[in-house]
């Protein structure tokens, strides 16, 4: 930290507590063993692993305990690519990070998600499922806050549901289950709430709040991080030195912080090959159509959310089998069924007549001819009344799909000329998806529709937007991935198999930015498992 004029003070005079920036002296330098930047799911998982150890850990969190508009403003950015939620909406910048508004749905990646597939450009991780598998159960317990059962076998969940057979053609579709704790304990959904007590009581971990890392400073050779520059909300400047640094500021911000750290390394840290921020992706999520069912099947049961005795929830999804994807050269993807929300209907004389009959518990004889005279949304009104009165299940479902975004070099996070309140360039997003991603969603919808017919469950109407107006048709999962992807070597990625930035001695990255590929599932369970694996690696370095 040559020439900064910072006074060196002993580190962590009061270790094991939350420290607000207001309590810190201007121009102070904090010393610690491991510095974790960002207190979201990834940062928290690593810090937790060090609870009760002799290693001193400092977590630097830009926000406080509550949402704060000034902190959130730093997340603003532009988007020149596909429609995307505003960058200060798709993530949260305070203690607990984006888990303050996440859904909490989890499922591990499959073995195939880590493999290289010749039909999927840029596929393949340098690690495989067995490398991360030992960490999944612990990650699950963290993500589910101790609820749920670490169990992914289809038959186990079918037994829970009392479904003897639900038999999509296994050569085509696999039935899988997702778990979630959110619906049980909404107030617990933030990782921050979950770990706050443990961190507060810790003797070796300090959490600095309202303190923003604005740059990573490197050695003169640019091969190690020597310190980080910090600014408080009120404008106080500080610094922190550590033996090891872990960047855990989320899938977009991890790339941004590397890029803005360009005082010594002009192109930005870890960016010798111009890959930082490249391959940005999110999961396209789309309403692919609707399913009309003809008779009772176990389908509505499997695809509803169910609660377990331990308080968690689970639901089913169908994913094309690996053999099917290989044969048809598709990305990973999945389909779920949601009870379709019924639109509000306009009233009319005919509608009233029908509804009154239904209220009397009758299904009027002339219903079908009356229906023919009224508009489609009236149809929905009648349907709703009928179900209310007869207590029957809905007869149609939204066909919901999520697709693995194929890694795309041209899809990226870069910097704009516009600056945030600390004078640092804001983020410019340019999100692009490849044709293969779109093709996968279309193929999935059509295959599902055909399978539904074969199983005599009903018929599917595919949404025309899927074909004609795809780019405006899908939404996203708010899963920011692959901007500092893991690779075998520096020519293909930003971090190595240990999540260490290539060419840097002591800088690691945690979060879904290190994903080499995105899979079709949700990211947080896997990013937490990777963070736990990283924590183990760091423990080896810090004993």
């Amino acid at each position, binding site marked *: 930290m040559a020439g900064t004029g910072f006074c060196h003070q002993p580190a962590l005079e009061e270790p094991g507590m939350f420290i607000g920036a207001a309590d810190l002296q201007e121009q102070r330098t904090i010393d610690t063993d491991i510095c974790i930047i960002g207190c979201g799911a990834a940062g928290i998982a690593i810090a937790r692993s060090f609870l009760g150890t002799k290693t001193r850990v400092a977590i630097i969190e830009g926000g406080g305990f509550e949402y704060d508009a000034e902190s959130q403003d730093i997340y603003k950015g532009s988007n020149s690519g596909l429609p995307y939620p505003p960058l200060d909406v798709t993530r949260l910048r305070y203690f607990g990070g984006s888990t303050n508004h996440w859904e909490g749905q989890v499922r591990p990646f499959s073995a195939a998600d880590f493999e290289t597939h010749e039909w999927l450009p840029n596929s393949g991780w340098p690690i495989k499922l067995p490398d991360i598998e030992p960490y999944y159960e612990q990650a699950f317990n963290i993500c589910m806050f101790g609820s749920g059962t670490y169990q992914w076998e289809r038959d186990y969940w079918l037994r829970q549901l009392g479904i003897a057979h639900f038999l999509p053609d296994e050569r085509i579709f696999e039935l899988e289950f997702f778990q979630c704790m959110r619906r049980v304990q909404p107030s617990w959904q933030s990782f921050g709430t979950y770990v706050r007590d443990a961190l507060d009581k810790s003797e070796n971990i300090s959490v600095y709040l309202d303190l923003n890392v604005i740059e990573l400073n490197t050695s003169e050779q640019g091969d190690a991080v020597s310190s980080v520059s910090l600014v408080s909300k009120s404008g106080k400047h500080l610094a922190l030195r550590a033996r090891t640094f872990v960047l855990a500021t989320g899938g977009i911000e991890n790339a941004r912080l590397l890029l803005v750290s360009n005082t010594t390394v002009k192109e930005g840290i870890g960016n010798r090959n111009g890959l930082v921020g490249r391959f940005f992706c999110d999961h396209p999520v789309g309403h692919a159509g609707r399913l*009309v069912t003809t008779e009772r099947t176990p389908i509505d049961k499997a695809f509803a959310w169910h609660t377990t005795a331990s308080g968690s929830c689970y639901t089913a999804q169908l994913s094309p089998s690996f053999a099917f994807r290989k044969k048809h050269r598709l990305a990973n993807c999945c389909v779920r069924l949601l009870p379709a929300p019924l639109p509000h209907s306009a009233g009319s004389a005919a509608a009233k007549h029908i509804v009154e009959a239904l209220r009397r518990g009758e299904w009027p004889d002339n219903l*079908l001819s009356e229906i023919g005279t009224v508009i489609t949304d009236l*149809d929905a009104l009648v349907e709703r009344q009928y179900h209310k009165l007869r207590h029957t299940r809905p007869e149609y479902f939204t066909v919901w799909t999520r697709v693995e975004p194929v890694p795309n070099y041209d899809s990226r996070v870069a910097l704009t000329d516009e600056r945030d309140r600390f004078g640092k360039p804001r983020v410019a997003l340019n999100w692009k998806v490849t044709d293969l991603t779109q093709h996968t969603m279309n193929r999935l919808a059509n295959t599902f529709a055909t*399978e539904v017919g074969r199983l005599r469950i009903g018929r*599917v109407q595919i949404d025309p937007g899927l074909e004609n107006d795809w780019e405006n048709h899908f939404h996203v999962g708010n899963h920011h991935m692959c901007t500092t992807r893991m690779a075998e070597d520096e020519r293909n990625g930003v971090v190595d198999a240990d999540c260490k930035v290539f060419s840097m001695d002591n800088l690691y990255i945690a979060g879904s930015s290190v994903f080499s590929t995105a899979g079709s599932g949700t990211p947080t369970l896997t990013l937490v498992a990777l963070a736990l694996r990283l924590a183990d690696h760091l423990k080896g370095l810090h004993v």
Partner: protein
Amino acid sequence: MKHLTRRQALVYLGGIAAAGFTPAATVQAAPSQTVVTAAMKLFARPETRASAALIGQTYLRSHPCENNTETLIRALDFMAGYDLEQGDTAVLARLYAQRISQDFESADVVNVDGWILSKTEARVFGLLALQQTV
């Protein structure tokens, strides 16, 4: 283009389920007429037949080369051997359902206004549509 509503789809799907309970119709001798009669028997209730015909119209618009009775009858020849005199409609309905399953099994499907239908059922609807206009 008039879009098919979910109600119309439900009505027609209900038609399939109900087909087995439809009373028998007049016996017809010529194979071509047998196919037409069989299709009408499958959709005996006027409202289900009307819905099926509506879907059929859409099918024929997107498949103009099948927009004539002869072609459709040829394509549906599996119904020509059906013995209207002897057979009961439930047998016909089973035969029809089997064909539909086979179509889905072999992905012999068509997209009619977004609905993914078996080729056989779309053709039956097409035939019903042509009968309505006769």
